[in-house]
């Protein structure tokens, strides 16, 4: 090949990022089997995303727990710690992300958690913009088994829905057995899906987290004009 073309050097640009918040209900009712399944699911998600070289660099995960209070979990380099809800610290690229082991306690202030998660995503976008990093539409995955317990959860749900209407975020909600799906349906535009019960369908959590991972891989490699084909949902009672 021409030596002149060999002399070409390439611009060194940061990868575009896809910010993702996993909003997980860690209230008392999730203790035992459900939370064990969530913890295994997070492990699976972390492993799967690392296998995908593009997703590993482009997907940035934050874990927000909602059990008694709302906090973010920083889980990287062998350490898991609760940290303040700060967009500069809460996100880890998928290749840095290590699955935390969550414990359950308290009630379910889902309204506050939803508001905090949305703020994290907005702040993260602002950081990308200030650093000249391209980004994909943020994703918020909500998983809960109950009923929001804070007073003004409906206002928070409406704020999230409005943000989704403005294309500011994509919300996917999943109700674990016992969840109030009607309440959950107010968070975002899409109908929540009911995860198959653990007793009848032991692999359901695993399948759900595998679906999350495949969906994020699809986004991470999307180019302008791509309509993202999400993988089929086989972990829920209702087909979408």
């Amino acid at each position, binding site marked *: 090949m*021409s030596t002149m073309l060999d002399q070409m050097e*390439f611009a060194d640009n940061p990868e575009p990022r896809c910010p993702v918040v996993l909003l997980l209900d860690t209230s008392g009712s999730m203790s035992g089997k459900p939370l064990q399944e969530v913890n295994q699911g997070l492990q699976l998600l972390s492993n799967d995303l690392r296998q995908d070289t593009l997703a590993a660099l482009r997907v940035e995960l934050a874990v927000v727990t909602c059990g008694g209070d709302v906090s973010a979990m920083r889980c990287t380099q062998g350490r898991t710690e609760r940290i303040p809800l700060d967009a500069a610290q809460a996100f880890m690229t998928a290749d840095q992300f290590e699955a935390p082991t969550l414990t359950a306690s308290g009630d379910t202030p889902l309204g506050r958690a939803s508001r905090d998660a949305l703020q994290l995503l907005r702040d993260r976008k602002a950081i990308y913009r200030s650093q*000249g990093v*391209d980004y994909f539409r943020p994703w918020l995955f909500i998983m809960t088994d109950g009923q929001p317990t804070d007073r003004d959860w409906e206002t928070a749900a409406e704020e999230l829905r409005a943000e989704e209407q403005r294309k500011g975020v994509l919300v996917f909600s999943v109700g674990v057995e016992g969840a109030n799906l009607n309440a959950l349906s107010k968070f975002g535009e899409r109908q929540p899906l009911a995860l198959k019960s653990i007793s009848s369908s032991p692999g359901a959590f695993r399948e759900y987290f595998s679906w999350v991972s495949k969906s994020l891989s699809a986004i991470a*490699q999307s180019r*302008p004009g791509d309509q993202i084909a999400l993988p089929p949902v086989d972990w829920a009672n209702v087909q979408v």
Partner: protein
Amino acid sequence: MTDTDREVSSPFQSPPWFTVAASAVGTDHVREGTGKQDAVARHPVGGSWIIAVADGAGSAPYSAEGAALAVEAATHALEQLLMTNPTLSIDLEEAIVEAMLEAADRLQGLAAERSEPVSAFHTTLAVCVIDGWRVSSGQVGDGFLVAELDDGSLQALAVPQKGEYANETQFLTTISSRDEIETATVEGIRGLAAMTDGLLRLAAQMPGYAPHPRFFGPLFNFARSATSEVKGCEELTGFLASPRVRARTSDDLTLVIAVRQAPPAEPSAEELPI
């Protein structure tokens, strides 16, 4: 170039331009079996050149056809115009916009004929006309057009029209008014590069899409020193297929380079000095 061409040359004629181009299917598209969705054209008309690049949307089933038709229709419309009118009498930006609108109409027509939504043919389109020492351009989408000025500096003529998100852009098939076609003219140029977005992250510095000098400098020098058009295109194709490019992008890649300088002519008996 034939002897007849040479006879009509005069000191007032536009300077000669030399162009090379390459277009290659992306590794993603090979894996997905979708084939190449980029299209490219470069046509000389008199002393001018019409250059067009288009990138069919990944999600649209007939976007390769859309891109091919967009490029064909726009360059054809411009050829008709330039063949019958001296370029100095034409507002080139206006002519490019008209040609692109014509291409958009043809896409609507194709969609109607096939009873498909026009979104099935989604494509971007960037068009330039190089005329003498100036270039004019029009763009819808995320193509990247870069002019090299006489002093060697680089100037972006068209940068990607992006939405908020990395995987969003505009399409020729969705424009609702001529104002959505971004036009530009740059005078005093000696080089022009046109590309689809596959090479963007290698060729532009984010944010702001500043042309990366170490990308374009050697690229223009390569075109200037190419010994023939065929060889130049072959080498450029080889570059697009090279491992170091493929390691950085899995998208379709299309690149056209024009430089204001005739390539050294093949030596032949008639051309030897007497």
